[in-house]
């Protein structure tokens, strides 16, 4: 391997270009086409299965189905309504209620998950050496559990009459907690999200820490830094790019929270049709088959996700430099 790398490094690149440049001029003239061939397959599926549906969705958001008075028992007409759907969505308390809920969710769930992930990664990087492979796999397994299975699973854990947790409480003569009530349901959902994604984030952090050059630690030890000091002054700053990315995905995931509340809504009266913005969009656009209003809501969710992501990226950019 050493020789191979050497060979590459030793290639006298500029010279080679000059020596070969004269001959294949003709073929080079078509070289511009290569990058496009590389992106063509992606572009095809991107245009067919993202751009086209997305544009279609946006176009629909400017229309609505209307009856011309009476009992409405004949087919409606699809009419241009301009920005009406957007105006309606912006005035819909349901949408803002949903945004507020995912905001509260994100403010609590993301830090808790990230701190736990960081703590585990730090422990595995310095203290807990034995059984590391086992811990790593155990943490990552929930990520591999299909969403529907996770929902069925936690559904059983949260249903008071059949939950093993409630069983344990009852056998200890205690009142079991109500996981599905209006004040607890959001945190029951946060628990599922944390369970699924904590290991994923932890692994990213851990992998980033393992990539920190050894020399930095040696220098730090010479400076008399403790393990905690090394964690604070070297490890955490060094894995900041990885954390930033993990945070960004978590923010997007929170705003678009959907799967867990949708499947738990069967067993919890506290999950209403606008519980999260995405649940709201799904109920309007699919369950109520109002593709027009639903299109406007989806576009707004996309826009607000963009604003938050952009704000986050800008804010953390400054921090990184500072």
């Amino acid at each position, binding site marked *: 391997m050493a020789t*191979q790398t050497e060979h590459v490094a030793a290639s006298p690149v500029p010279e080679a270009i000059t020596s070969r440049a004269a001959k294949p001029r003709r073929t080079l003239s078509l070289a511009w086409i*290569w990058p496009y061939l590389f992106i063509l397959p992606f572009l095809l599926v991107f245009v067919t299965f993202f751009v086209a*549906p997305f544009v279609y969705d946006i176009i629909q958001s400017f229309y609505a189905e209307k009856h011309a008075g009476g009992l409405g028992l004949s087919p409606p007409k699809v009419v241009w309504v301009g920005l009406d759907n957007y105006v309606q969505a912006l005035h819909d308390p349901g949408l803002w209620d949903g945004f507020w809920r995912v905001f509260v969710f994100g403010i609590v769930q993301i830090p808790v998950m990230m701190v736990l992930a960081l703590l585990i990664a730090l422990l595995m990087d310095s203290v*807990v050496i034995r059984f590391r492979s086992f811990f790593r796999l155990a*943490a990552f397994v929930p990520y591999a559990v*299909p969403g529907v299975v996770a929902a069925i699973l936690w559904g059983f854990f949260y249903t008071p009459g*059949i939950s093993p947790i409630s069983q344990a409480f009852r056998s200890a003569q205690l009142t079991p907690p109500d996981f599905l009530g209006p004040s607890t349901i959001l945190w029951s959902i946060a628990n599922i999200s944390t369970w699924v994604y904590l290991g994923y984030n932890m692994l990213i952090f851990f992998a980033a820490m393992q990539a920190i050059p050894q020399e930095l630690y040696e220098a730090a030890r010479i400076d008399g830094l403790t393990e905690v000091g090394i964690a604070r002054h070297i490890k955490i700053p060094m894995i900041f790019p990885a954390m930033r990315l993990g945070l960004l995905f978590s923010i997007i995931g929170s705003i678009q929270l959907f799967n867990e509340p949708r499947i738990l809504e069967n067993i919890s009266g506290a999950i209403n049709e606008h519980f999260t913005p995405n649940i709201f969009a799904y109920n309007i656009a699919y369950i109520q088959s109002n593709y027009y209003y639903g299109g406007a809501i989806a576009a707004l*969710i996309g826009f607000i996700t963009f604003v938050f992501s952009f704000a986050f990226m800008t804010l953390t950019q400054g921090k990184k430099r500072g």
Partner: protein
Amino acid sequence: MATIPADLPNVPTEQSGGDRRQVLIGYKAWAPKNMVGYVFLIGMTIYFLTPLYWLFIASSKDNTDLFASFGLWFANFKLLDNLTQLFTYEGGIYLRWILNTVLYAVVGGAASTFIAMMAGYALAKLRFLGNRLLFAMVLGAALVPLTTLAVPIYLVESKIPGLTHTYWAVLLPTLLSPFGVFLARIYATASISDDLIAAARVDGASEFRIFWSVALPILVPGMITIFLFQFVAIWNNFFLPLVVLSDPTLFPVNLGLATWSFDPAAHELLNNIIVTGSFVAVLPVAVLFLFLQRYWRAGLSLGSVTG
């Protein structure tokens, strides 16, 4: 092409750093301060594994014991009965669902990984007009809630004759993986040096040959990581199949399980086979992660150094 670096040239993989802490001076696993760390991690492991442990225990119980007996220990061991019932119910359609899901996840995952790799490589290593715009669009795609796009995707598909209600209706949309392109770009940037590509060009290799014979072998850990992400995403795919498929024999397993789970018309108590079916559905993904562990670990560390 004479030379292909067999390992990642500049990025320290986790493997190479993995054992170095072992030589920490004076490290003792069972020192009191380390014990606290172990206890904490064991606690977290219990948190991660208990629900799956419950699922295993529950899949060994009949409908009576499922809720009547203590949830975290065995009652009458009926795992085989449940499996028999699971694989014979409704003419053994469950096996068909599993095979369908494997088909969707393996074919869709592999094809979308390859497509993402090509695009990500081009974005990272080739200069062309619209490069930045394309990357911005790839990022933007992550911001639109995909659940709301399922119906529009279906409407687009319905314009292509003979596409809906077939395997292709589920497979083709899964070829799209903006997140995969995003990762592929990171991997290509981090692990393929420009010198290497220049050298290959000097040797007269075509751009595709460079990609295929020089870049791809280096990108294997990254590729497998992207494949796994996409595999899990497709294994999770629920809403699109629900909308575009009408023949239950084409369903993926989680749509099938949901059909059993929420069907008020079901005149039998299906809890035992739903629980057993959930348990069986987790196994292929878990096994895949276990066997490809080496690669995704390397892939993750590669992705983590450049955010």
